[in-house]
């Protein structure tokens, strides 16, 4: 047992070193690497609902968008009048000093983690009683509604969009901004991973699985399923909000439906990545997101104009050939490598049965 732990240790420290070195090794790819971290976080948090709890949500984009708007609003609002900023050309008149910029984004991220979690709690209380596709459709509406509402609120720029504070001009190094956002997102990724891994070893995960496998039975066993479902969703919202906040700062421009509450892209991608890698596994979403991102960045420019067709084909291929995702497929092929004990007699018996 100890030996396995040691292997794990090597794996994790290797990954962390790679993560820390990545922006120096692949300096030109910093933005894409930042995207990768955020995508992995989104896939992992989606997996908590979709994979572990069996609640296919399209609503996580709501927390992502909320986090984005909140971070930017706090970052501006702490020092300057927000309405004047968004109305036109705020960043010319009001310039953040270096200290203000980092204080602002710090407090902003804090808010963008807590508020979405609270919102998830409130919404969850109202709609987590729905099950199956009723829940999926309901959450699909959440993201769309939020986009339309945000597009009508003047103080956050409405249809004009919201330009987030530019990186402080006092820092002359043009690489600094890329590094800052990369390390921020990498820290978030590690935080999310540690948290999810902790959940994987806890009773909480078993309860989520029980809810997925048979919610009525779980309830009959005396588990207050509603409570756990809400807490699970709040955890996802916490990290989704942070991811959104970081992305808002990185992109530099928030548009209500295309950047923040981007259900058509991010909202679908997070589901797709988790399923591609294998939902209900720790590493599945990580692998899924990584593969997806490489597929997207590497191939999409080669097939200009046809990339969404290719994406459609990819979805079909995944659903038909890897319904359980890559991890699920590997598990089926090499069960012993996943620590599953296979009784040889049992396997033979099954072969004979076929």
């Amino acid at each position, binding site marked *: 047992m100890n*030996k*396995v732990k040691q*292997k*794990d240790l*090597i*794996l994790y420290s*290797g*990954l962390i070193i*790679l993560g820390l070195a990545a922006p120096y*090794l*692949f*300096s*030109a*790819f*910093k*933005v*894409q690497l930042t*995207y990768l971290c955020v995508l992995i976080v989104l896939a992992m948090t989606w997996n908590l609902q979709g994979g572990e709890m069996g609640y296919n949500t399209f609503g996580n984009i709501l927390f992502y968008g909320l986090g984005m708007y909140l971070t930017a609003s706090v970052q501006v609002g702490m020092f300057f009048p927000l309405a004047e900023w968004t109305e*036109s*050309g705020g*960043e*010319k008149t009001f310039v953040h000093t270096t200290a203000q910029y980092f204080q602002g984004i710090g407090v902003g991220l804090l808010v963008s983690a807590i508020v979405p979690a609270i919102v998830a709690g409130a919404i969850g209380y109202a709609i987590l009683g729905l099950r199956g596709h009723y829940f999926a459709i309901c959450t699909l509406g959440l993201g769309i509604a939020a986009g*339309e509402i945000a*597009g*009508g609120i003047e103080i956050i720029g*409405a*249809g*004009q*969009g919201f*330009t987030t504070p*530019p*990186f402080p001009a006092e820092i002359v190094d*043009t690489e600094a*901004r890329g590094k800052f956002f990369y390390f921020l997102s990498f820290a978030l990724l590690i935080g999310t991973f540690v948290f999810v891994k902790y959940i994987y070893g806890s009773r909480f995960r078993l309860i989520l699985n029980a809810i997925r496998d048979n919610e009525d039975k779980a309830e009959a066993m005396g588990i207050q399923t509603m409570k756990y479902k809400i807490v699970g969703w709040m955890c996802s919202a916490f990290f989704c909000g942070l991811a959104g906040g970081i*992305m808002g700062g990185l*992109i*530099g*421009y928030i*548009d*209500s*439906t*295309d*950047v923040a509450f*981007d259900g058509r*892209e991010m909202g679908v991608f997070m589901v797709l990545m988790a399923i591609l890698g294998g939902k209900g596994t720790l*590493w599945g979403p990580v*692998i899924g997101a*990584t593969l997806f991102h*490489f597929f997207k960045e590497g191939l*999409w*420019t080669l097939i*200009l*104009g046809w*990339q*969404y067709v290719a994406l459609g084909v990819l979805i079909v291929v995944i659903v038909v050939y890897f319904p359980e995702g890559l991890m699920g497929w*590997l598990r089926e092929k*090499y069960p012993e*490598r*996943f*620590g599953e004990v296979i009784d040889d007699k049992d396997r033979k018996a099954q072969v004979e049965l076929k």
Partner: protein
Amino acid sequence: MNKIAKLFVTFISAITLALVSFTSSSFAKVEGEYIVLGSAISLTGKYSSNGVHTQNGYNMAVDRINKMGGVEVQGKKYKFEIIYYDDESNPKRAAQLAERLIKQDGVHYMLGPYSSGLTKAIAPVTEKYKIPMVEANGASRSLFTKGYKYLFAVLSPANQYLEVAIDLAVEKNGGKGVRIAQAFEQDAFSQDVRLGILDAAKRTGSEIIIDDKLPKELNDMAATLAKVKATKPDVLVVSGHTKGALTAIRQISEMKVDVPMLAMTHCDAAKLSKQHGKKSEYALCASQWHKNLSYKDKFFGGGKKYARDFQKEFGYDPPYQSAESSAALLVFKDAFERANSFDRDAVRDALVDTEMQTFYGNIKFGPGGQNIAKPMILFQVRCKGDDCENRVVAPTKWASDKFYHPIPKWSERS
């Protein structure tokens, strides 16, 4: 578990290898005899038709300039080449692609994307890396108030699009204020057109009786039109890119909405007069350019010749989006030759001093980067039998036809 670990290590080292080999093949700003420009263009998504108009405009100018000797810098002739990416009409993607063009493809000069929203997303990136960007399709006023130093727009800002139309309506009303109904898509460009109308209304003492916001990917505005039918305003203003123009005409004719004046944007990009024929007659449209204007340059001749050549190459009449995109390359060529260097700041300084005439119009950049030398024009769709075309009605200097007002009622139209 250890097998998985191995699998992982293999996987990650494979990726590392792939990335390293990728990085080493980085491009340069000027490769051999080519000056490499970068552009993220909407080839898919809601702006795809206008994105293609933009790309066609760029390509047309690149071909023409290259054929006519290219760009001469320090006695050597260079040709233009453009790296395109598809931004999927999404600002997030556009910003990411701008980074990619600059950091990975090593592009040092950018051409703008289509639409104000996407330009707004790219401008902070080009500004950060001090990359000069000449853009032809981001008209939002807010782009020019942010103090950007590397952004140059060959077009007039969005708030000027339909102000003239309100002035015309007031003039026809005997100098008294008019009642305006307006509906705008919720995006940066259309919202700026709206601000222009609000200013004009205040100035002329006009009253805004309907002020609707329309969703993006506009497919239905029946609710607004029902209100228009009930309140009978003097002017109806609609702006929502190509889809907005098509939807408005389709539903106005279906619902037989009578308004004395209908003012819109993007009529020519939507090929209204072709697609809807007589139904679109009398619609008043704001435009950056029209082929009948008398501007000239040595590459494209005049507007009419440009239109003919464009028609020959791409099979349709050039909308102003294509014309202004072509003009962007003329501006770049001019700036490179005056700077006589590939230094980004030298090129940027040369761009600041631009003062030239192109087939598309005069170009001179104001302090915010917008073109201040070219007025907007208005044209009206007029039909002879089933043959409809756009005729310039304002400003009077280039007006080929008289402005027809008011629009006859549907019951009187054949």
